[in-house]
């Protein structure tokens, strides 16, 4: 039985040349007797037709700007399509942002009533659920305090507890599980799975492909407003990776100090906070992350892939080459080149240098470069930060040290099954039955 059905749905957005359409323009246009083009149009969704069965858990994936959030809002009746029809049966709860509409001055309990009423529930339904909501939020002690005294984590917990406990037929969620501490995230996921087992319908938008693969029965892949793949999670996700590389792989040249543009391009598909961070670092904070006598300076760091193309996206298990360009202002004897790789959450993964690797450089003068080559980068999906440095032989005095100043991304490799943990270690399994 179809619970959601979209027929040929398109949504157009207008990007206005100024943030607000001024009354002024309306008056001026009226006086001039013609309309000036106040906006640029683009189609966020184009001819989307899909149907979702009762009890299905469906994932919507795609790059930022692909239209997946717009699609969710159109299904949730927050946005209206410009063409096409939408048929929905049953009660929908949309969790696009937890705690939207919370009143800071009022208590947690009062906010439960308001929020649940906005989500469309009656007083009776809320009264029946309120204890469960409070228990789930783990805020028993604070529930009668004004929520302005809550931490952001408490805020989110309350928001999720309300939305998930009001028991809709269809739950639409957008990236909400990215918040809260790990414990609460687990609890939310458990609740979503429980919801799923009760035969409810879920539409889940996320960049977290691991979770999408785990909980979804079917996945829709969107690209530039079009529905391009509809199918099993594994198939849609690998197609997504293929598009990612095809579209942006070659454009994502190594991040150079001035190449803000390339970073912006990267921001189109990598989670925003990371990019905000690298962008900030590359422009302003760079200097504070750099120290040394500068008798030798690192002039450039670039990343190269297995085809010797500049890139900073790699698949797990592929070759990565890091090239460190330098200029030595005078003759330096026995310099030591080193790098370090940290995951973006701060975990130090490796930190080799030429000396510890038993590779000795007699002397340098003028320009040159050093390549650091990893044949099989066993790193799993994530964003990594690279440190590059040149030290004198004792490794105590730096000539030039750039701490965590470049980033690169690892994406899943369909040929390597590993996806849990930090690194992929080649291994074999053997089974011996007792008989």
């Amino acid at each position, binding site marked *: 039985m179809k619970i959601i059905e979209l027929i040929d749905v398109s949504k157009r*957005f*207008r990007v206005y040349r100024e943030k*607000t*359409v*001024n*009354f*002024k323009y*309306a008056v001026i246009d009226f006086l001039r007797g013609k309309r000036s083009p106040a906006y640029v149009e683009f189609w966020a969704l184009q001819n989307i037709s899909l149907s979702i069965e009762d009890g299905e858990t469906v994932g919507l994936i795609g790059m930022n700007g692909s239209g997946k959030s717009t699609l969710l*809002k159109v299904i*949730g*009746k*927050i*946005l*209206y399509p410009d063409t096409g029809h939408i048929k929905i049966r049953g009660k*929908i709860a*949309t969790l*696009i*942002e937890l705690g*939207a*509409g919370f*009143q800071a*001055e*009022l208590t947690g309990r*009062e906010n439960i*009533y*308001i929020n649940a*009423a*906005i*989500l*469309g529930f*009656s*007083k009776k339904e809320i009264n029946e659920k309120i204890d469960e909501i409070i228990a789930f939020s783990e805020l028993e002690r604070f529930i009668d305090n004004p929520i302005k005294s809550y931490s952001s984590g408490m805020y989110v917990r309350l928001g999720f507890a309300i939305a998930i406990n009001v028991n809709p037929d269809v739950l639409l969620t957008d990236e909400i599980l990215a918040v809260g501490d790990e414990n609460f995230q687990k609890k939310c996921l458990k609740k979503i799975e429980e919801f799923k087992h009760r035969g409810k319908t879920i539409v889940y938008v996320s960049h977290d492909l691991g979770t999408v693969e785990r909980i979804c029965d079917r996945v829709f892949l969107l690209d530039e407003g079009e529905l391009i793949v509809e199918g099993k999670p594994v198939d849609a996700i690998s197609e997504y990776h293929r598009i990612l590389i095809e579209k942006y792989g070659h454009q994502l040249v190594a991040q150079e100090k001035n190449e803000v543009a390339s970073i912006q391009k990267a921001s189109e598909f990598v989670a925003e906070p990371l990019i905000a961070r690298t962008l900030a670092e590359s422009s302003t904070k760079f200097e504070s992350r750099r120290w040394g006598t500068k008798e030798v300076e690192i002039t450039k760091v670039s990343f190269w892939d297995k085809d010797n193309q500049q890139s900073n996206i790699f698949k797990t298990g592929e070759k990565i080459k890091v090239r460190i360009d330098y200029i030595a202002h005078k003759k330096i004897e026995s310099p030591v080149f080193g790098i370090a790789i940290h995951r973006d959450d701060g975990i130090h993964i490796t930190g080799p240098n030429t000396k510890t690797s038993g590779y000795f450089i007699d002397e340098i003068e003028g320009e040159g470069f050093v390549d650091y080559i990893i044949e099989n980068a066993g790193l799993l999906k994530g964003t990594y930060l690279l440190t590059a440095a040149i030290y004198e032989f004792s490794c105590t005095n730096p000539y030039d040290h750039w701490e965590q100043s470049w980033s690169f991304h690892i994406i899943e490799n369909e040929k390597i099954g590993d996806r849990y943990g930090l690194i992929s270690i080649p291994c074999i399994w053997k089974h011996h039955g007792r008989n």
Partner: protein
Amino acid sequence: MKQLIEKIVEIYKLRYLIHTLVAKDLKVKYKGSVLGFLWSLLNPLLMLIVYTVAFKYIIRIRIENFAIFFLCGFLPWNFLSSSLSMGAGSISENPDLIKKIFFPREILPISTVFFNLIQFLLTFIILVPALFIFKIELGAALAFLPFLIIIQMIFVLGCTFILSALSVFYRDIRHFLEIFLQVWFWLCPIIYPITMIPERFRFYYMFNPFAIFIKCYRTILLENGIPSLEAFAILITISLIFLFLGHSIFESNSKRFAETV
């Protein structure tokens, strides 16, 4: 027509939401202030004192029972003007709700109007004792008061729909409204009687629907009289026209609220 009935049923079903939002606004408004809802009474009371001093002792216009005369105009006016200025922001000041959650958007202006209606009714706490103090004779005409209030509410709702929808797209409307309300205040017989308007202008003066409202309030409360059928007919017609017009403007624009606010 069928759509309209469906809309009314839909909104009636959400009466608990309206109730909650009105209660929320009242709570938020008075939370943390010592005098609480007394502030809602103090405002008209202070205005009453200011205008009494100004008109009775400085400008010296002789109006019988000035306090009642003033309150009969000022309290309904307050209901109108605060609904409009609050209502104009009811959509544009709630982007969080509009962008993130679906619910019939009408709920927001409607609950603003109900919020102000409650404030209006609370101010009767001043009006009723004043009626006794000035020994105003009240009678059967009072039965028409609720009816008049309901008509005014329909009128206010219609205007609020228009303003709340348009101010999403035209931010200047709210600035314009501030000035407009001041002008409108003086165009209403709130602090002066209609009889002070020169005879030859009076016909045009009565094009201001709110002048008719105030006239009716005074007929009921001050003169213990029943407003003319003609006046009621005009008010009902105007109010319904505003409601339909307002709602259709609101409805046709509401589809673009989420992408504009």
